[in-house]
């Protein structure tokens, strides 16, 4: 199974780092979309289906918390798992994002392995990023 992933962060560099970790982790990615804030993320979602969203909180225009709120209120988007990657890692903020429906939380700075581990949990694939599943599928084991 391949995934469409949406990375939402106002920092080009951070989006690049997240994308690099995703690809190096062996996730089978069909398309990886990018957005600089929540408004741009919603525009992407209006045109394309995504399987998982990785989002920062502190962004201009529509921030990560507002994005989570809008997703939760939309019947089409509310089931899309969201992983928050942010510098704002207080207990209060973590509770807030989980109450808004986020499925994962990563504090910046992070080691690439941390992002990979949380993504594996959220997407529901093994630590190999789904490689073993794909190999079995190729063999016809499914």
């Amino acid at each position, binding site marked *: 199974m391949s995934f469409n992933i949406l990375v939402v962060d106002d920092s080009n*560099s*951070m989006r690049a780092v997240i994308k690099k970790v995703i690809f190096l982790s062996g996730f089978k990615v069909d398309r990886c979309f990018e957005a600089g804030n929540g408004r741009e993320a919603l525009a992407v979602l209006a045109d394309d289906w995504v399987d998982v969203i990785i989002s920062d909180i*502190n962004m201009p225009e529509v921030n990560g918390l507002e994005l989570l709120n809008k997703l939760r209120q939309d019947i089409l988007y509310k089931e899309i798992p969201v992983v928050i990657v942010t*510098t*704002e*890692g*207080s207990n209060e903020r973590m509770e807030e994002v989980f109450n808004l429906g986020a499925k994962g939380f990563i504090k*910046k700075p*992070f080691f690439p392995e941390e992002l990979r581990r949380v993504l594996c949990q959220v997407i529901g694939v093994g630590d190999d990023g789904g490689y073993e599943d794909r190999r079995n599928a190729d063999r016809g084991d499914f």
Partner: protein
Amino acid sequence: MTVDTKIEEMLIEAIFEVFEKMFYLSLEPLNADHKGCDIAAIIGLDGSVRGEDDIAVTINFDGSVRGEGQISLSGGLTEMMAQNMLSLDACEITEKDIEDCSKEAANMIWGNFLRKFNADEAFNLSIPIFRRSPGAIPCQGPDLQNPMFRLNFVSNGECLEVIMTMSDRNR
């Protein structure tokens, strides 16, 4: 241990974590022991960052305490940070990459520091402000003219200065 010493320790730890995890760089604190050594002669021990390619990033935070922080980086350090973070060669690094990585560094340093300072509180962090040639530009806020904390580091012959002021919200 005084409160200021404890805060300084938390700030140093936050800085080390950011540079190790995101930029794969180890920093060495610059202190009086460095006087007379080559690196101290090159960059100085009093303010450290003076080159034309040097940059500064300023950020504000607000909560039960509020304050302002600034990182000043030598041009070579910003290039190393961008190369390491983005896995790019030196010739591929753009001005935008350097600005982006430097702003992200400031954002992560103070986000990380504030978590250590009070993990139960959600502080507000401003959008970082990036400036070129900090030697020619006064510090952003009046509080940073006389910072409570001033920390200098070296990494591979390049330098980083971190200054911060913070005060109780009600003062």
